């Protein structure tokens, strides 16, 4: 939409197209509010977005370049009597970005050893930051990277294989030309990364060619780029609980008609160095080969009594769930499955919490499939966009690459009367929603932000083979060492339309203990085959990305020294489901419109009466409440 002639008055102005913002936008628009929905980015869904492979590479680039100084313009001429300016500036919530490519740049010749041409590239940079010091740092960073390139050239010269060298150099050029990508060498690992621990203990030579690969032909980086459109790589790693608030909302509001879903086909866990399937349905338990018949009975009985809530477990309140499980005489196998894979909690989680999440898991089982989870085709980034679409269908106006510069505060009422957008237009409004990145500097310094550690891998095979190559797996991984975080992993096959055929897209997520690399790389090294790992026969990592993202779960909706009609929408949280975001969206909606219904079912297009020019544009759509890809 052309931005020049935006209407000058809206009911709700929303900055940021994350899930919370998009749900509120749809809900407001649905009940007749005039909604202006903006995002400074060129894509939808903010930190909830999905990217093609090439899109992700540019995103990585953008994260690095996101340093454009705020043009501090004086907007005072737009001020009216009794108004005050609140400047808005955003800060990225992504840290410690690191990229490793473990596959060859170009297609290999059949007999060439895969590793002789492996390169490891790594990108590190400090986040765009508002203070001068960090700009300085950034500059240093660039310098370092220049040096690195030189190093690399030297290194390449030492390579004996000329062909490979040419390939690599070509690739290098490509990158320089197209993406202006800085390439660090492993020897320069310790370049500055803000927010990360000193990295002395990191492996110093990850790219030593140590193994001879089996004859299976690896997918090259060039192929990944060529097939980049097949990928839809999410920034968040979540699944949809079949009876979770997101699924219920999608159904209730008819937003589900805009998306299709895939059943998560199995739950896996990592235990004693092996990946095992977790039996969680009756059929799984029946077919399980790991469990004895007595264990089968005990497990089924525990699950049944859990869902029936017949027995009173209040005696265990406050005591660890693990203790409760032990007292049920469930044995090691079952305790592991129940604690880590079904309740998905840790050893010291209190019993009442453990039981509640076990029940939640069980309630979600069997609604759509054999696991409690669904995954949207084309990635989770589809979901905010579906809500945006609903908002637009009911008249909401959308502008990307369009931001707000400041809020205009009515000093008398402490309410925001209007906003000034990035083009200097003054827009009156009754309510404003901001994504959390705009209130960073207003955050309470006493509680430093918490982070999530994320890793995204492209691998060449599944962690746990089965008859089908199209399994979608949830993998629960208990802490591998004491103090390490419990990791939730999702392995997506190409049937989810998130990766090219022949590859798997693996998302890892945990609460940060330190940097994403430090939190997750030891696990990846043991579970997958990378140049650092020793074990063979595991899925090979072709490419991987590490980053930390701010954990949105602690973000307050109100306060932050902001006017009372300005609400802050938090970014993604670390939980597997979407409860936090949906609950928050509903809360914000009811603060704006206390009397209104939250996302009532959208009428069928043929039932809508159009009068005059205000007809909402919507195609003929007639689909079942939730579309499942079988």
């Amino acid at each position, binding site marked *: 939409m052309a931005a020049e002639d935006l209407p000058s008055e809206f009911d709700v102005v929303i900055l940021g197209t994350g899930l919370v913002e998009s749900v509120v936008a749809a809900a407001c628009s649905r*009940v*007749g*509010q*005039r909604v202006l929905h903006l995002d400074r980015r060129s894509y939808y869904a903010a930190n909830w977005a999905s990217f093609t492979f090439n899109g992700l590479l540019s995103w990585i680039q953008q994260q690095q370049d996101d340093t454009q100084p705020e043009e501090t313009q004086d907007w005072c001429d737009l001020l009216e009597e009794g108004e005050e300016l609140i400047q808005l500036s955003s800060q990225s919530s992504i840290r410690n970005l690191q990229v490793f490519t473990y596959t060859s740049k170009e297609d290999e010749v059949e007999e060439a050893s895969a590793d002789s041409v492996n390169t490891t590239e790594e990108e590190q940079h400090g986040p765009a930051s508002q203070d001068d010091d960090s700009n300085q740092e950034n500059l240093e960073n660039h310098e370092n990277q220049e040096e690195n390139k030189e190093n690399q050239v030297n290194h390449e010269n030492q390579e004996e294989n000329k062909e490979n060298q040419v390939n690599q150099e070509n690739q290098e050029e490509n990158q320089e030309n197209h993406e202006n990508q800085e390439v660090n060498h492993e020897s320069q690992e310790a370049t500055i990364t803000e927010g990360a621990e000193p990295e002395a203990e990191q492996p110093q030579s990850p790219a030593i060619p140590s193994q001879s690969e089996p004859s299976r032909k690896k997918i090259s980086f060039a192929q990944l780029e060529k097939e980049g459109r097949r990928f839809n790589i999410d920034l968040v790693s979540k699944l949809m609980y079949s009876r979770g608030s997101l699924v219920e909302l999608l159904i209730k509001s008819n937003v589900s008609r805009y998306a299709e879903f895939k059943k998560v086909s199995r739950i896996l866990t990592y235990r004693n160095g092996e990946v095992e399937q977790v039996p969680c349905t*009756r*059929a799984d*338990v*029946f*077919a399980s080969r790991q469990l004895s*018949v*007595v264990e*089968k*009975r*005990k497990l*089924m*009985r525990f699950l049944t009594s859990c869902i029936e809530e017949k027995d009173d477990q209040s005696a265990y309140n406050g005591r660890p769930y693990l203790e409760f499980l032990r007292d049920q005489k469930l044995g090691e196998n079952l305790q592991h499955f129940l604690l880590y894979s079904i309740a998905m909690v840790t050893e010291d989680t209190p019993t009442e919490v453990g039981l509640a999440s076990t029940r939640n898991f069980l309630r979600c089982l069997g609604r759509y499939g054999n696991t409690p989870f669904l995954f949207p085709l084309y990635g989770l980034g589809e979901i905010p966009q579906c809500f945006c679409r609903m908002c637009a269908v*009911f*008249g909401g106006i959308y502008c990307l690459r369009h931001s707000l510069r400041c809020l205009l505060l009515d000093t008398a009422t402490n309410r925001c009367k209007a906003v000034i957008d990035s083009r200097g237009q003054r827009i009156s409004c009754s309510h404003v929603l901001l994504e959390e990145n705009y209130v960073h500097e207003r955050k309470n310094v006493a509680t430093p932000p918490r982070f999530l550690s994320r890793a995204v891998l492209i691998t060449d095979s599944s962690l746990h083979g089965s008859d089908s190559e199209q399994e979608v797996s949830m993998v629960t991984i208990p802490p591998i060492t004491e103090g390490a975080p419990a990791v939730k992993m999702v392995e997506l096959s190409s049937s989810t339309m998130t990766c090219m055929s022949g590859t798997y897209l693996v998302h890892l997520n945990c609460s940060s203990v330190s940097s994403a690399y430090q939190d997750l790389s030891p696990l990846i090294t043991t579970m997958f085959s990378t140049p650092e790992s020793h074990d063979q026969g595991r899925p090979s990592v072709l490419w991987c990305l590490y980053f930390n993202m701010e954990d949105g779960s602690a973000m307050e909706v109100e306060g932050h020294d902001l006017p009372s009609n300005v609400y802050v929408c938090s970014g993604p949280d670390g939980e597997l489901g979407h409860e936090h975001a949906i609950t928050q969206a509903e809360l914000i909606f009811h603060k704006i419109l206390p009397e209104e219904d939250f996302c009532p079912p959208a*009428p069928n297009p043929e*039932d*809508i*009466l159009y*009068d005059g020019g*205000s007809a*909402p544009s919507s195609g003929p759509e007639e689909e079942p409440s939730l579309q499942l890809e079988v």
Partner: protein
Amino acid sequence: MHGRVKVKSTAQQEEEKRKEREKKLKIYIAARDGCFTKRKEGVFDDEALQLTQQLLSSNPDFATLWNYRREILMHLETVKEVDEVQKIYEAELLFLESCLKVNPKSYGSWHHRSWVSARLPRPDWARELSLCDRCLSLDDRNFHCWDYRRMVVKMFNVPVDQELKFTDRLIGSNFSNYSSWHYRSTLLPLLHTTASELPPMQAESPKSNRVCEEQLLKEYELVQNAFFTDPNDQSAWFYYRWLLGRELEEMISCLHVSREEEQVAVVFSRPVNVQSGCLLLVLDGQPHAVEWKSIHPRFKHSPVWICNLPPGTISEISNEHNLTVHWTEKHSRKDCTLFTGHAESWCQDSATDQELFRSELSVEKNSVLQSELQSVQQLQELEPLNKWCLLTLILLMRALDPLSYEKEMLAHFQTLKEVDSMRSAYYSDLCSKFMIENTILKMEYAEVRVFSVSDKNLSTLCHLDQLVLVTHINLSCNQLLCLPPQFAMLRCLEVLEADNNSIGNLEGLYHLPKLEAVILKDNKIATLADLEPLTSCPRLKRLDLRGNPVTQLANVESELAKLLPSVLDLLL
């Protein structure tokens, strides 16, 4: 409120829908009438095919139209080339798929599909099989599909092991499915033959229905996984019962001849109807045409049949006679010699030798049964109140050693009646049956003709065919309500004691040639009519009716004297 989307009211929507429906109905009726007219005129053209297709795709349960369609197709067969016919039928199959999507349980569609498949010049059975698989994956209990699939499997000669894998898959995805388990039970006996040449499905069922040992052990494991996972699911327990079970051999188990009555009684291992002349009686080398009667006019099928020999044939006490009865149908025979000076003679297979009462369960090796018992006991410890588990436990104990497990069996029956009170009468009857079996075994060990089961809480009588030779029976202090018609099988009975029951019906005391004394103290005999059957017992001399309501009737004594003149010793 501004800016809201205006939506049609419910009334508007209803009105639109109504009009829509009316329109549809008009089209439908026109097409239907068109079809009927064409059929009446004997038109078998493409247009008719089109019209019926239109109608059937919206309503696949219109049998007349399917019939018409078949008439058209059969007509086309006569006028078109084979290749064209093939094409027409292939199109028909596609059309049927769309019908099955409308109603996956339409009788008409499935029937038409099997008709088309059978007529297709070059059928593609693999495709049909995958259609069935798809259909069953959507609803694994669609019996139409199961039926059709059986037909396809037969036509396609699918090997047994492949079909067994198919049931593996179905049971794996949902083990609460009788169809899958049952199908498995039909496949396993076919696997018996050597693995190298598995018979195709259409092969005649082999002579022996036994499942080979190795496979059985696998099956036990499979079914245990099912009932440990969900002990409340019946399908697995029923399959387990089948696995443990065996088929009864069909044969003549007993032959009895009485000189005085000049009567022969034949006992079969199961109820049969022998009126069709399949039973041949040979006396001293001479076939005799005799008339076989079941022991009670109520039974067309009975395990006991009797015949009267022509008067004088064997009545001379000094003669020895050789008697043979052939059951021609089953190649079973029984011989017996009536020696000089003997009033009767018999030949009987003992219940003990035959392990007759283990027939509920198989003659598996004891070790296998023992280990099965252990696993079920293990489950019972985890689920002490599970009725299927208790019941199976009882059956396994009976298969192993009915007499030594008697006490445990009774305790389990008690629990069963408590946890499943809706079926307590069933459990009482079953328990009675087992107690009678035990008593028969004890009687055989003792080598007597006296059968005594007093004070055992019997609620019903059974296995009476095993008591043909019994002369004295004591049923006192039980909860019997009647002496059923089967009681007439006790051909040698002389004395009946049945004090302290609730008997109000004596239907089974019917033509018992030797019955002399009937002791029925403290029962529920209320009318003279209840005593009517006794008139058929010629030798009845002693009758004890004390404590029965009938004794309160006016003139009961004289009425009884009139009714039963042979009774000399009457206690009221």
